[in-house]
């Protein structure tokens, strides 16, 4: 089994990194190895999807793990699909790392853990019993936690690590209990047994709730997202790319595995809940992103948004399935998985781009960048493609998946229940807002970072990054275009993955090339290929027209700017000023955003200062609130440490008497 050897390889690389990380060459070697292995795994996944289709490779049992259970591994089409979605970006990140890996603050804290991180993620995908699944799951959190702590001298990174690991373990506990319920008191922890397990309705609901909590906390679903914007940016960029673009997908995989494979029938209410949570995540996530000045934090928040979109689609799938609309259910699953692939692609592309920017300028703050497009053309173009894709602009891939999600969302009211009928439009509003905000957010990100005039010397002195990094960004950019232009192939591919989950395959006729018309021929269709072709045609026409009707003369001149002509780069619109209108409208409500302008008295030469305060209500309310409670209790309990021996004896005495009373009462 190829994937097995790949896993072994990752492990060996990790050990090699632990041993030989003192040599500079080792780092490059390890990243190269990761590249090869990840590429192999991608190939294996693709091959499996094409060759086997639905039927799974029989489970492999290895003699470790729980003694009476052993470790089960299995590769079915779902795992194979996620193998591709995980390992392709992983390969890119490794390629990026070959050049970037030695530029992180302390490479020795990063390189050995990188392959282990990949190992853990792949382990989750091929696990076929709860123990292996959770061990890999935890290993994933653990390795990424250490990666977040790789620049451990930064207090913010340490705080991020703490929040991250605690949240991760919270999620693990939720999954643990869910699996416990599925396995039953006898402890049948292998998935095969869980599929046939009989559960009471209450238990089923508990499993679903715990699964949503557990995987949601990993995927960054609001309100469990608080760790994500802290942790993802703290890691080195090629790791952030994996955490944001890939690890969240592993969480999605866990959810699908639990709710669609292990639990066949789930009530539509849960679908509705997921939909609403997803909508909240989508809208809030991108709003947060709009307010950020730190490029990587911005990207992390936009991950929250995209996870929200995926959750919307998954929730719809559940609701449809519960109401017997299997075709629509399949459609929304396809939409969800399509978005999984897309987000994995462009989010890793964007994070790698931010890494390139950091390497070139050492800056993450948008307001200290600017004008990079001229100095870093390739990075700029790739980043632009990524920005367009994530803003769902045709003909790129982001649009296709969002189009599919919208299509299935517009069919939501076919589920004849008032909650769905009135809920779906609201969710629609949220998602539409999210889409529009995303465009604004990335106009802001790209425009401020790459266009205009440089806002700092670092930005002024930026140089293009070495070729492996460029290649690592160019490849996904190309794929963003391909997946956007030939969507039908992708959807047919995904349909085979979805079929065993919803027991219906999208009819091929409806998906006939090149028209992507999922529901029915009349219900609305999209043909990226034709759009692109006619667009190209119109472009040529335009060029010819302009060429023949007009001159081609061009003069370079100082910027006009209505004659103002100030040259200070800081007179440009900054990131904060760009988001000011939206901040005025939404920020003050959602984030209690406060702006303070202090003007120097007339005549003084002191500069005027503008300071912006943004608070995350969920963070201050939920998390800090929890912390306060724990502190209060800890203070109370702490008194126990400072008693006299007599008091301690008293405690013993009371315990004894209490227990004796219990016995006395029981024996009467």
């Amino acid at each position, binding site marked *: 089994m190829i994937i097995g050897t790949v896993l072994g390889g990752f492990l060996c690389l990790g050990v090699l990194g632990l041993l030989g990380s003192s040599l500079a060459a080792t780092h490059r070697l390890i990243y190269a190895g990761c590249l090869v292995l990840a590429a192999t795994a991608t190939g294996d996944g693709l091959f499996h999807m094409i060759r086997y289709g639905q039927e799974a490779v029989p489970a492999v049992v290895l003699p470790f793990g729980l003694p009476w259970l052993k470790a089960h591994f299995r590769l079915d089409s779902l795992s194979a699909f996620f193998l591709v979605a995980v390992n392709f970006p992983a390969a890119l990140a490794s390629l990026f790392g070959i050049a970037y890996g030695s530029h992180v603050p302390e490479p020795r804290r990063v390189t050995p853990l990188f392959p282990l991180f990949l190992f853990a993620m792949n382990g989750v995908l091929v696990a076929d019993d709860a123990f292996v699944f959770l061990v890999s799951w935890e290993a994933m959190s653990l390795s990424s936690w250490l990666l977040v702590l790789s620049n451990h001298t930064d207090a913010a990174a340490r705080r991020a690590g703490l929040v991250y690991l605690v949240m991760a373990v919270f999620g693990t*506990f939720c999954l643990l209990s869910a699996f416990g319920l599925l396995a039953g*008191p006898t402890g049948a922890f292998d998935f095969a047994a869980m599929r046939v397990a009989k559960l009471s309705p209450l238990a089923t609901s508990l499993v679903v709730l715990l699964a949503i909590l557990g995987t949601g906390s990993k995927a960054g679903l609001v309100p469990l997202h608080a760790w994500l914007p802290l942790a993802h940016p703290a890691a080195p960029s090629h790791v952030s790319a994996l955490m944001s673009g890939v690890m969240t997908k592993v969480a999605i995989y866990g959810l699908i595995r639990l709710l669609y494979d292990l639990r066949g029938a789930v009530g539509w209410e849960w679908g509705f809940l997921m939909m609403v949570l997803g909508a909240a995540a989508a809208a809030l996530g991108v709003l947060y992103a709009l307010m950020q000045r730190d490029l990587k934090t911005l990207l992390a928040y936009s991950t929250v948004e995209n996870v929200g979109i995926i959750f919307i689609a998954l929730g719809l799938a559940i609701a449809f399935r519960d109401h017997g609309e299997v075709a629509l259910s399949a459609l929304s699953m396809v939409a969800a998985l399509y978005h999984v692939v897309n987000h994995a692609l462009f989010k890793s592309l964007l994070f790698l781009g931010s890494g390139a920017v950091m390497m070139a300028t050492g800056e993450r703050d948008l307001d200290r960048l600017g004008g990079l497009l001229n100095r870093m053309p390739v990075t700029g173009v790739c980043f632009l493609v990524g920005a367009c894709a994530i803003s769902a602009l045709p003909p790129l891939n982001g649009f296709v998946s969002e189009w599919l999600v919208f299509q299935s969302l517009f069919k939501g009211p076919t589920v004849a229940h008032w909650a769905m009928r009135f809920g779906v439009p609201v969710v629609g509003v949220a998602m539409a807002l999210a889409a529009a905000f995303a465009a604004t957010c990335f106009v802001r990100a790209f425009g401020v970072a790459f266009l205009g005039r440089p806002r700092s010397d670092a930005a002024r002195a930026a140089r293009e990054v070495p070729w492996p990094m460029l290649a690592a960004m160019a490849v996904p950019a190309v794929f963003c275009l391909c997946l956007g232009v030939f969507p039908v192939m992708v959807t047919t591919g995904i349909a085979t993955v979805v079929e065993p989950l919803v027991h219906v395959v999208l009819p091929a006729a409806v998906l006939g090339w090149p028209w992507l018309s999922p529901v029915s021929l009349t219900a609305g269709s999209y043909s990226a290929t034709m759009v692109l072709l006619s667009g190209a045609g119109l472009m040529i026409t335009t060029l010819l027209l302009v060429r023949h009707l007009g001159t081609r003369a061009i003069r370079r001149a100082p910027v006009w700017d209505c004659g103002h002509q100030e040259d200070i780069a800081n007179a440009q619109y900054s990131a904060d000023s760009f988001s000011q209108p939206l901040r005025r409208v939404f920020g003050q409500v959602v984030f209690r955003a406060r702006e303070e302008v202090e003007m120097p008295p007339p005549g003084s030469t002191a500069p005027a200062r503008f300071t912006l305060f943004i608070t995350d209500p969920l963070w201050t309310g939920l998390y800090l609130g929890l912390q306060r409670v*724990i502190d209060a209790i800890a203070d109370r*309990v*702490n008194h126990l440490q400072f008693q006299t021996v007599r008091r301690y004896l008293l405690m*013993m005495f009371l315990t004894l008497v209490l227990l004796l009373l*219990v*016995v006395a009462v*029981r024996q009467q």
Partner: protein
Amino acid sequence: MTGFLSSLLPVGPADPLFWVLGLPLAGALVMALLPDWRHAAWLNVLVSAATFGAAACLVFVRPVETPLLFIDDFNIYLVGLTAFVGFSTAMFSAAYIGRESRIRRLAPRNLRFYHSMYQAFLFTMLLALTANNIGVLWGAGEAATLTTVLMVSLYRTREAIEAAWKYFILCSVGIGLALFGTVLVYLAAQPVMGDGVAAMAWSQMIRRAGAFQPELISLAFVFLLVGYGTKVGLAPLHAWLPDAHAEGPTPISAVLSGLLLNVALYALLRFKMLIAANGHALQPGPLMIGMGCSSIFVASFMLYRRGDIKRLFAYSSIEHMGIITFAFGMGGALANFAGLLHMTMHSLVKSAIFFAVGMITQATGTKRIADIRGLTARAPLLGWCFVVAVLAIAGLPPMGIFMSEFLVISSTFARDALLAVPVMIGLLITFGALIWRLQGMAFGPPGQWVPDSERTHQSALVRAVGMAPLVIHLILALIAGIYLPDALVAWFQAVGKLLG
């Protein structure tokens, strides 16, 4: 010597048990007389190693059971574990004590005393584990208390003396209650088993426990729970534990957490088996679950306010004892297995942590957590071992404790979700505290450090001997998390059945 020992011990030299018990006893006597403490330190290592060897033989030749001593599936691996941890701790203490004496914290007289007491302590532990007679079990427990009290007060500082005193008083009362429980058990057994030793031999009682008077053993169990529970350190009986751990020499903290608590719990479980075999008596489950939960919660909140690194991990021991008690309280094949596994893993990992803590405190010259920073940057090997150990104790895979916690929580949740929730909350709170402290100590810019000139210049060999136990323990815990030998699994499952 052999003759002298055989006069003391109820088994013959042909029996490995004879050596398991005899070697430490003889070692205690010899080291009390040995003039130079350096020789004592190494002799300590040798004797412990030999004891471990003898204990290992038990796996192959299982001695015939006598009314006083016996070996069964339950105590065989605990004997092995105790002998092993005793051995590795002896290695660690050889290096540790060396440094301590160089910086004049310990006088040679104390050191001689220390080594002798160390062996005596091991002897009492092993005796308690192999005891068939519940009276002997009790006596060994008391003797263990006395020896450890003496070692806790070794530094003669006011803190040490107060800690020792607190320990002595609380545990003496606990022992008294335990004795009363033991007498009650005898009272219940005597009419069935007839007079004399037979009515105190566990292995014979368990066969006919069904006929015992249920009320009596229920009553007995309460006294035993409070009595031995005090030594286990279950909240609210835990008060002695943190101070005794914190103020004694670090090797003693290691064996306290790693061995003594286990032995006390072992004693409690023996009686739980009796009750389980009886069937009509009150269910010990709820009582143990209650005390387990209270321990978990008290410990988890205490962790947030600890400024002293040794107390921090002492409280984490309380928490883990709580988890184990909870698991046995739940009962059932999975939970019992988990409890037994957790006992083993905890004693391995927690002693490893105390090894690390000992080296850290000696290297930084402080016990205050706030002053310990950036270990991974300053001393990579030690620092990362510490990180791994703490992660293991916090219950993260691939270490063994994850497996046991996995089994406890999942099985509990499947049977009674409401019981699992508080445990999970407690574990989460504990986890937060541990990771918070760990990050502060292991990461960030390096903190204060005793310059090597002031630190003792030990030979590489001694340093290695001091470091080896830590690494070995962690490797064992790692392996156990991934693969458990079949023999161990068989023992666990057999014991689990008896525990009901």
